[in-house]
C-alpha cells in the first residue's frame, strides 16, 4: 500500500512538472500567441499641425557702406545703438574733395567776372554800333545833298556794319561766358553731391546690429560698414516640409519656442509664405510674425515653430501606431476570432500628437491592434492584453 502511494505521488509530481514545462514552453516559446494591445476607431475634432525649425530674422534689414572706395573718417554709432531715419552715422574721408569744392567755388566767381567783362564789351560794342549807325545815316543824308563824296559815305556804311558784327560777337561772347558760369556751378554741385555721398546716413529707424569697420580703415566700395535692422519687423523664417505645405495660408496661428527660452511658448501667425522653395532640401520657407516681439531677442536665434492648420471636424481616427505596412500595403491589423487580419485603409490628415484620420477601411466595431511585441502575420494567434 505504502509503495503504491509513493509511486502515485511521484507520478503526480512528474506529470505536474511536465505539464508545467509544456505550458511554459507554449506560453513563452515560439508557439505562444502574440500579445497585442488594442484600440478602436474614435471620432473627434482633429487639430493637424506642421512643425518646422527656423531662425529669427528681420524682415527689413539694411547694410550701410560707401559707394566709393576710400578711408573711413568717422563712425558715430556702435553695435546696439538706436538710430532714426536720416540720422548722420559717419563719414568717409573726402581726401581732396573739399579743395576741389573750393576751387569750383573760385571758378564760379571767376566766371561771374568773365560774364561781367563780356557784358561790358557788349555794351561798348552796342554804343559803338549806335554811333556808327548815326554817322551812316547822317552821311546818307549828306550824300543826298551832295555835300560829301560817295566813297566817304560808303566807308561810314561799312563802319556801321562792322560795328553791328562786333555787337554780335560780343553777344556770343557773353553767352559763352554765361554757359561757362553755369557749367562751373554744376561742377560745384557735383562735388557737393560727392561730398554728401561720403556721409553714411541711416535709411530707417532701427538698431545697429553690426559695426564692421573702424575709422581709418580702407573700405572698398560696396563693403558693409554698419548693419541696421528695423526691430519692429522681427519675424521667424521657418523651414517646413514641402509635403504638407499646401495647406498653409497666411494668418494661420503658430506656437513658437525660442532656443533662448525653451519653456516659454510664444504666439505668432503666418505673415508670408515665400514663393520660392528649396528644391534640394524639399522644404519651403514660411515667415511667422510674433504677436508680440519679445524683448532682447537675438537675430539668428533658433526657433521651433508649430503651425496649426484648420481643425478637421468630427474626424474618425486611430492612433498612428496602429498604421502598419504589410506586403507593401498600408493598413491596420484587426483582431478577428483572436487571429490577426490585415485590412488596407485610406488615411487623411495626421496630427503631431499621433492621431491619423481614417477615411475608409475600418468601422467603429472593428478591434484594431495598436501595439504588438513583434511584427504580425496574417492568421497569427493573438492574445489581447
Amino acid at each position, binding site marked *: 500500500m505504502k509503495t503504491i502511494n509513493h509511486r502515485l505521488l*511521484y507520478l503526480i509530481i512528474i506529470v505536474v512538472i511536465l505539464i508545467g514545462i509544456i505550458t511554459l514552453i507554449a506560453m513563452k*516559446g515560439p508557439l505562444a500567441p502574440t500579445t497585442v494591445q488594442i484600440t478602436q476607431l474614435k471620432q473627434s475634432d482633429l487639430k493637424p499641425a506642421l512643425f*518646422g525649425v527656423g531662425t529669427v530674422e528681420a524682415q527689413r534689414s539694411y547694410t550701410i557702406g560707401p559707394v566709393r572706395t576710400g578711408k573711413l573718417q568717422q563712425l558715430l554709432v556702435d553695435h546696439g545703438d538706436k538710430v532714426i531715419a536720416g540720422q548722420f552715422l559717419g563719414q568717409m574721408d573726402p581726401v581732396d574733395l573739399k579743395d576741389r569744392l573750393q576751387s569750383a567755388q573760385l571758378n564760379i566767381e571767376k566766371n561771374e567776372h568773365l560774364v561781367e567783362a563780356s557784358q561790358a564789351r557788349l555794351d561798348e560794342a552796342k554804343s559803338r554800333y549806335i554811333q556808327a549807325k548815326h554817322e551812316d545815316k547822317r552821311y546818307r543824308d549828306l550824300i543826298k545833298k551832295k555835300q560829301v563824296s560817295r566813297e566817304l559815305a560808303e566807308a561810314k556804311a561799312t563802319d556801321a556794319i562792322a560795328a553791328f558784327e562786333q555787337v554780335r560777337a560780343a553777344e556770343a561772347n557773353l553767352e559763352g561766358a554765361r554757359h561757362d558760369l553755369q557749367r562751373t556751378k554744376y561742377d560745384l554741385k557735383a562735388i557737393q553731391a560727392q561730398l554728401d555721398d561720403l556721409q553714411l546716413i541711416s535709411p530707417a529707424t532701427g538698431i545697429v546690429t553690426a559695426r564692421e569697420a573702424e575709422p581709418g580703415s580702407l573700405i*572698398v566700395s560696396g563693403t558693409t560698414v554698419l548693419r541696421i535692422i528695423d526691430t519692429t519687423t522681427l519675424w521667424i523664417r521657418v523651414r517646413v516640409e514641402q509635403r504638407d505645405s499646401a495647406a498653409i495660408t497666411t494668418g494661420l496661428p503658430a506656437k513658437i519656442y525660442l532656443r533662448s527660452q525653451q519653456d516659454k511658448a510664444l504666439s505668432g501667425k503666418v505673415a508670408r509664405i515665400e514663393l520660392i522653395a528649396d528644391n534640394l532640401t524639399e522644404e519651403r520657407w514660411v515667415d511667422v510674425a510674433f504677436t508680440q516681439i519679445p524683448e532682447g531677442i537675438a537675430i539668428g536665434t533658433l526657433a521651433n515653430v508649430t503651425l496649426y492648420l484648420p481643425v478637421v471636424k468630427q474626424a474618425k481616427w486611430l492612433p498612428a501606431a496602429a498604421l502598419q505596412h504589410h506586403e507593401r500595403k498600408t493598413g491596420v491589423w484587426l483582431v478577428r476570432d483572436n487571429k490577426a487580419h490585415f485590412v488596407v485603409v485610406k488615411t487623411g490628415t495626421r496630427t503631431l500628437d*499621433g492621431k491619423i484620420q481614417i477615411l475608409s477601411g475600418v468601422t467603429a466595431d472593428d478591434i484594431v491592434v495598436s501595439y504588438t511585441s513583434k511584427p504580425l502575420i496574417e492568421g497569427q494567434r493573438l492574445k489581447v492584453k
Partner: protein
Amino acid sequence: MISLAYRDVSNSFGRYLLTGIGLGLLIGVTLTMAGVFRGMVDDGKALLRYADADIWVVQQNTLGPFAEPSSLPDDIYRGILAINGIRRATNVAYLTLEVSYGNHSVRVMLEGIDAQQNLMHLTAGRPVMQSHYELVADERSGFKLGDRIPIHRHDYEVVGLTRGMRSPSGDPILFLPLKDAQEIQFLKDNDAVFRDRAQLEANPKLNPTGNPALLNAVEQSLFSNHRVNTVLVQLMPGANPRRVADDIEKWLRLTAYPKDEMEEILIGQLIATASKQIGLFLVILTIVSAAIVALTIYSMTQTKLKEIAVLKLIGTRNGLISRMILLEAIGLGLIGFLTGKLAVTYWAPLFPKHIVLLMDDTLRALLITMIICILASFAGIRAALRIPPGSAIGG
C-alpha cells in the same frame, strides 16, 4: 513486471535529480551558445527584414553602408526613381554612436529615415510625427517614453518604443527624421565651427575684399550636409531585382545590391569571423557536454556494480538490468534537457545581446542528448553485463 529503474531512482531520488539538474545546466550553456550564434546571424538579417528593400543602393564600389562607409547625395533618389521598375526609393542615414541619458550610457545605431515611409510595429507611444527632434527607440536601449535624449546640439524626445530593432552588430536602433540624422552625422562642435570660420575668414581667396557674399556662400556649403548612406529601393511587382540593380549601376554610376547579395555581405563578411568563432566554440562545447553526460551515466552505473552483481546473483534477467540502466540514462537526459531548456528560457533575456532560441535547435539538442544518453548507457550496460554475479559476495 518490476521496474528496476523506478525502484533504483526512488531509492536515491534527490541525488538522481541533482545529477540531472547539473547536466541540465551544462546543456543550458550549450543551448545558450547556440542561441548566441543564431542571434548574431539574426541580428545581421533583422535589419534587412524590416528595411523591406529589394535593392540597396550605395556609393560606387563600396560594400556599404554597414561593411564599409558609403555616402550618396540625398537627391540621387530622384534619379533612381526614374529607372524602370522602381516603386519607391527611400533615403536612409545610419550612424552608430554612444548616447547618454542621465547616468545611463548606451551604444546605439541612429537610423535617419522618413517616418511616413517607415511604419514599424510599436510596443508603446506613437511613431515620429514631427519633422524634427523626435525619435522611436528600441526597448533594449533602456529609454522610456518622454525621455529627452541629448544628442549633440539638440534634445530628442522619445515618442515611441519598438522591439527587436537591432543593427547588424546588435546595437539597439533609434529611429529619427532623416534631416536630424544628417545633421548629427555632420555637425561639428561649436569650437570646431568657430575655428573653421576663422580659417575661412583668414583665407583671402575665400574672403576677398569687395565680395563679402562669397564667404557666406562658402560657409553655407561647408556647414551643411546633404548626404545619405544608402537608398532603399522597392520594386514594382514582377520587376527583376538583378536587372534593375544593373540599370542603377550602369546609368547612375552607383553600386546596387539586391537583397540576397546584401544579406551575403552582412552575414558572409560583416560577422563572418565572429560567427565562425562562436560556431567553433559551440561545436567544442557540444562535444564536451556529450563527453560529460556520457561519463556521468557510465560512472553512475559503475557505482552500482555491486548491487547489479547481487541482482544477478538472485537470478535477475540481463534484459531487466539493461532496461534499468537505459531508462535511468534516458530519464537523466530528459531531466537535464528540460532543466537546460528552462534555464535558457529564463536567462536568455538577461544577455545584453540578442539570443535566438529556435525550435529546430531545441529539438536537435533533445535528439543529441538522447543519442548520447543511449550510447553512454550502452557502455554502462556492457560493464554491468560483464560483472560476474560472484563478485557480489566476494571482497
